[in-house]
């Protein structure tokens, strides 16, 4: 095979793409080329415009200006994703777009079901074609399985299978590995290598640098809606990439302050949370831990380890399914609802901010004051002036970037949304702050700011529990680290004892070996 010939064939070119959303210039004069048999990594902080660009290329919405050309130079405009698919461009979105009540086969071929001569769906062919795809993905389930019954990682693979089924010439993958197990990641990488050999051009969006080395040929780096760097992967160093993404020299390591821990503020003894559905698996199994003032306890574990559920159980979200003891400042408490927990001085910033954290149609001020509205009353009524007077210091403290307090939060970036949630909780003057993946989906700069806040809050006498699945983050932030696996606490390390290897090892199930 002639590598050079293949590598220069352009399959898809974007030229001068510009796209504006209300108040935001999402893309400005962006150009890139997807070449046959090569993987182009698209890097950038959240909000840099990567997903918008991919949505434009795959026909989700049209650009305001610029052209999209296919390999033969033909200028195209796609009315919808279907039209893009018909011209060989497929996308796997970050979020799942599956119908839980339909089978794997029906999902993969949705809208393109093979028909028999009588006009009905040809289930035999549907089944056989799907089985072939599942085999490629090493997914050992029947094509008739309902998608709703699959684990999230498996659903992600079905989504990828859907893209494979279109026999796309250009395949766009938007953070495809976010919920995959290490084995599933390996399978996916195998499939990608195979596609490259077949001359498919790939665009790959990721935040995980370690994936690049395995896959990547070309790199395009975006920032603030523009392309700021374009190079062969082999010509770039990790430092250079981070520097381009952040727009300035980046210091990788966060310098944590060490405070003398104060009195014990939260004690959790044998907390157990039963599963809600059939099977009654324990989501949290007999977990105990303590937290002191001026202390950050990190909880590390893989997806499904029960970390989120542990925080929810402590916070009184599932009173009917929770057993065990929780003590706040030495006194046993029994939270029947989050309101009880908040009264006792607890606060929980959830992992999925849009789903659990924010009231999207409400303003910055209304979101930030929601948990402390009582303090903004004048004569029993909410006073707008008092509300903004009360909430502004908190919003300012977290340096929320918003045109005004009346801005609707749906338009703000992930980092700013997280800061609003933190402002909301700080306004309740809590003593214990539970943070679930506080930097998920947040860009590098905002991440560093959040780290500094966590440090500062600990210094102010709060106790913090930080759940994270990013090992460097847990190691950098925590005074102590609790590791969970399959609902159980498997280890606890002091800062001095914790090494990446030891923590990771404790987080892996017994039967699995360390991925090389």
């Amino acid at each position, binding site marked *: 095979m002639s590598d050079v010939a293949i590598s220069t064939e352009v399959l898809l070119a974007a030229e001068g793409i510009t796209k504006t*959303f*209300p*108040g*935001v210039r*999402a893309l400005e004069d962006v150009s890139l080329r997807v070449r046959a048999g090569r993987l182009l990594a698209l890097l950038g902080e959240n*909000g840099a*415009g990567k*997903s*918008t660009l991919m*949505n434009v290329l795959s026909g*989700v*919405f049209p650009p305001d200006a610029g052209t999209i050309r296919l390999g033969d130079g033909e200028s195209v405009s796609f009315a919808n994703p279907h039209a893009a698919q018909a011209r060989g461009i497929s996308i796997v979105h970050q979020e799942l777009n599956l119908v839980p009540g339909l089978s794997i086969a029906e999902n993969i071929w949705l809208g393109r079901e093979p028909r028999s001569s009588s006009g009905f769906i040809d289930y035999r062919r549907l089944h056989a074609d799907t089985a072939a795809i599942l085999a490629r993905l090493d997914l050992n389930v029947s094509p008739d399985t309902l998608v709703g019954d699959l684990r999230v990682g498996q659903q992600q693979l079905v989504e990828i299978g859907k893209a494979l089924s279109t026999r796309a010439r250009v395949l766009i993958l938007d953070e495809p590995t976010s919920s995959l197990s290490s084995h599933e990641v390996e399978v996916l990488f195998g499939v990608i290598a195979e596609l490259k050999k077949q001359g498919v051009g790939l665009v790959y969006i990721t935040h995980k640098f370690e994936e690049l080395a395995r896959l990547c040929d070309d790199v395009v780096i975006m920032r603030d809606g523009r392309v700021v760097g374009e190079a062969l992967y082999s010509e770039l160093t990790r430092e250079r990439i981070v520097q381009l993404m952040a727009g300035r020299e980046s210091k990788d390591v966060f310098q944590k302050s060490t405070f003398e821990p104060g009195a014990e503020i939260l004690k959790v003894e044998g907390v157990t949370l039963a599963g809600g559905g059939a099977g009654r698996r324990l989501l949290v199994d007999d977990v105990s831990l303590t937290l002191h003032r001026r202390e950050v306890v990190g909880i590390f574990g893989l997806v499904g380890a029960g970390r989120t559920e542990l925080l929810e159980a402590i*916070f009184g*979200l599932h009173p009917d399914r929770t057993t065990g003891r929780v003590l706040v400042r030495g006194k046993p408490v029994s939270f029947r*609802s*989050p*309101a009880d*927990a*908040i*009264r006792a001085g607890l606060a*929980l910033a*959830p992992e999925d901010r849009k*789903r*659990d*954290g*924010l*009231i*999207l*149609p*409400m*303003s910055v001020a*209304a979101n930030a004051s*929601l*948990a402390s*509205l*009582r303090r903004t*009353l004048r004569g*029993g*009524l*909410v006073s707008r002036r008092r509300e903004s007077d009360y909430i502004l210091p908190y919003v300012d403290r977290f340096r929320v970037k918003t045109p005004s307090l*009346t*801005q*609707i939060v*749906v*338009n703000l970036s992930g980092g700013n949304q997280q800061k609003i949630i933190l402002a*909301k909780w700080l306004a309740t003057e809590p003593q214990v702050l539970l943070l679930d993946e506080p930097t998920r989906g947040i860009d590098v700069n905002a991440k560093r700011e959040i780290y500094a806040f966590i440090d500062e809050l600990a210094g102010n006498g709060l106790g913090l529990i930080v759940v994270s699945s990013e090992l460097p983050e847990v190691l950098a932030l925590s005074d102590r680290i609790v590791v969970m696996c399959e609902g159980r606490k498997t280890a606890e390390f002091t800062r001095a004892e914790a090494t990446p290897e030891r923590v990771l090892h404790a987080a892996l199930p017994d039967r699995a070996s360390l991925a090389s």
Partner: protein
Amino acid sequence: MPLSPAIKGQFVQLRSLIALVLMTIALSLLSPHFLTTDNGINILRQVSINMCLSIGMTLVILSGGIDLSVGAILGFAGAIAAGLVKNGLSIPGTDVHLQFTTSGAILAGVLVGALLGFHNGVAITRFRLPPFIATLGMLSIARGLAFLWTGGFPITGLGADFGFIGTGAWLGVPLPVWIMAAFIVLFLVVTKRTRFGRHLYAVGGNERAARLTGLNVSRIKIAVYTLAGALAGVAGLIVTARLDSAQPNAGLSYELDAIAAVVIGGTSLSGGRGTIFGTVLGCLIIGVLNNGLFLLNVPPMLQYVIKGYVILVAVAIDQASAPRNRDS
């Protein structure tokens, strides 16, 4: 240039206002009877019943629910008040017979409405029934109770005191219009300026987040349905007093007019977005339309068709100008 949601909200209301003004101008030109003080007051009086229901419906829809039972509750509450004021209440199996004053009967009517609304709220929160189902059941229950209570016959001859609610006037303005105005002001303040109002928007905007922020979602929802029921009770009193007769069938399908007014007023059926002011405009639009079509001698059958299209067009315009929420 797409509009930001905040501006868009104002725009929806502005549009409703413009539609109302245009309709008023057009009808003034088409009919000499339209733009008169008498007719204006007439429209307001006719609108007052739907306004009570629509204000309650706005609260329910803002919280992310729906209430199909308000028309039936209106019928039952009116019947209860009428029956109590006319006949009193004999407790079966005893010799006890309770006689009610007019104000006692009025209070009982509102309380019965609130109680059935509370029933809705409990069914939706404690027993986790979808609002559509819980209130659909109540629609049938309340209507059935109204027939049981009246034996299927109208209760008439309720006395001048009771009739005052429907036919009385102060400063030349009918009492129902005063009642309506009071509720508009009250609930403008409740939705804009109270914690309950803010919590209501939060629950409708994102129930999970509201719960995690420590809001008692169940209590808020129960309060909302109870209020909607009580307002339906008030509407039932007005209807009964105006006709000096409680019909077991009163309020049949009124819930649909209320939902229409809320939707025309720009409130989102998915919850968390909308205003009382928008609903007031929506109600007035429907009222003016009804009145105008009547004055223009449009056949009643055709009126239904026209009203249906007004609802469809209003919401279609809303949808067309709604920003498509896409994560970038």
